[in-house]
């Protein structure tokens, strides 16, 4: 990519084009949904004041979300779903928007350790709660065992549903679930995979269950 002679301001690659338009879009969204965060990102202790001084959004509500172990002080329009807040306000885009109506599971995250559809939950309802997203599970150098098992078993094709699948699978480890594949399939039925990687996903989950 770096060596591409056609890449540059006048010949954008697909990636630089998306990054440019993406940041424009993000700037617009920030006006409606302000990240007053900063505890983590900027390291300020006066983050509340920073949030209060931000763009004035009619009806915005101040909340604190503890996401992947860090506190984020935010001001959100009450209509903002937890999913949109994670992706657009906090810029954690690992959680995906599929159907946006609780029918596909791509948006699955953990709230206080339990898996939920973040698209059907309003961010304001989670003030003070602990959120875990795919970014909080592991790192590229130290994958969560479930992430490693999905790689080992080829539990995806396009990858769009994968973060939701993995968040569901990790939650499943702590839920009542019978030993056989049928029980795993039943408890994973809230996560749809259009590529049809289901057999590999079940194999990945069963391997982690066997090893734990």
């Amino acid at each position, binding site marked *: 990519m770096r060596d591409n002679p056609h890449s540059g301001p006048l010949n954008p690659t697909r990636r630089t084009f998306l990054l440019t338009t993406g940041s424009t879009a993000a700037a617009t969204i920030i006006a409606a949904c302000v990240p007053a965060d900063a505890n983590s990102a900027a390291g300020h202790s006066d983050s509340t004041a920073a949030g209060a001084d931000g763009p004035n959004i009619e009806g915005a509500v101040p909340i604190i979300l503890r996401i992947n172990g860090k506190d984020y002080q935010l001001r959100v329009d009450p209509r903002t779903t937890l999913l949109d807040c994670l992706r657009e306000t906090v810029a954690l885009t690992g959680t995906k928007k599929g159907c946006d109506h*609780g029918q596909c599971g791509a948006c*699955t995250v953990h709230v206080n350790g*339990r898996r939920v559809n973040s698209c*059907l939950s309003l961010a304001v*309802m989670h003030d003070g709660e602990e959120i875990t997203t795919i970014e909080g599970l592991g790192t590229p150098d130290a994958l969560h065992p479930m992430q490693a098992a999905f790689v080992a078993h080829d539990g995806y094709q396009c990858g769009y549903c994968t973060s939701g699948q993995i968040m569901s699978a990790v939650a*499943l480890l702590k839920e009542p679930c019978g030993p056989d594949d049928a029980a795993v399939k039943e408890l994973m*039925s809230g996560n749809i995979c259009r590529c049809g990687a289901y057999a590999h996903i079940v194999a990945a989950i069963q391997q982690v269950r066997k090893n734990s």
Partner: protein
Amino acid sequence: MHTFDFIRPADAAAAVAAAAQAKTAQQGADVRFVAGGTTLVDLMKLNVETPARLIDINRLPLDKVEATPDGGLKIGATVRNSDLAHHPTVQRDYAVLSQALLAGASAQLRNMATTAGNLLQRTRCMYFRDTAMPCNKREPGTGCPAITGSNRTLAVLGTSEHCIATNPSDMCVAMAALEATIHVQGPKGSRAIPIGDFYLLPGSTPNRETVLEPGDLVTHVTLPALRSGSKQVYLKLRDRASYEFALASAAVVITIAGGNVTHARIALGGVGTKPWRSPEAEAALTGKPANAANFRKAAEAAMRDAKPQSENKFKIELARRCLAHALQLATTS
């Protein structure tokens, strides 16, 4: 989604006071309580629900499952469906309720959805969910395109010329068979409503789904003590093996002595405009030998008044077989 004020009341009385200013009753009201959000947020995104005020009841102390002095069970309004399904007492004494809960939705949704929210779950009728279409339930007087349109999944019991929308709940079907009581705190005080009196038939006012009045907050549900030795089964039939609404389902609570049915409570799901208790099936069974022929007679009695639409006639026989099979499973388990 329309804008709304978001309120988190300090206690149930404050929640009721805030909701009492609503112009209409809870269903489709301008003031709404929110707990799990799995139905309400979904419908708000579709502009089917457009509350101007949202009252978050998640932090109210309504999340306990407790034994009652008379040997029954008290279930708080905000107990999550997954917690209720896996509660040891529910699994041991009210297996039909646990089975029904686990047959509904997905693991994620069950972690969010609550007892009271499930009681007030709204229909999946595609015309109700699409604001571009007429719908008597959503906009009274605009008509029911489902009657002449796509109605394969819609109701065959309790319908009217104004609405044939199916009640989608599994939990409520089990609660109907268990003769649950719904406890409500309202502007005029508290009251207890048997589940059989809680839901309204659509008639000419399908927009009114329950007897709830503005400000009424469901605080908990109670289940009576069960007769010792009762057998229970929830059987759900659907287009796919999991994560799908019922085409037909049956909740059975039955007691047998000396080969005869001494007591039966039966309710059907997926076929009615409300969770459908069937006194006809119960009467057909009580005092009779527990055998396949009598199970079939009970199933026929349950569906005697069924009225098919253009695409859903199959549901009548499906529901009969579902009930007969559920009775077979209950009595041989």
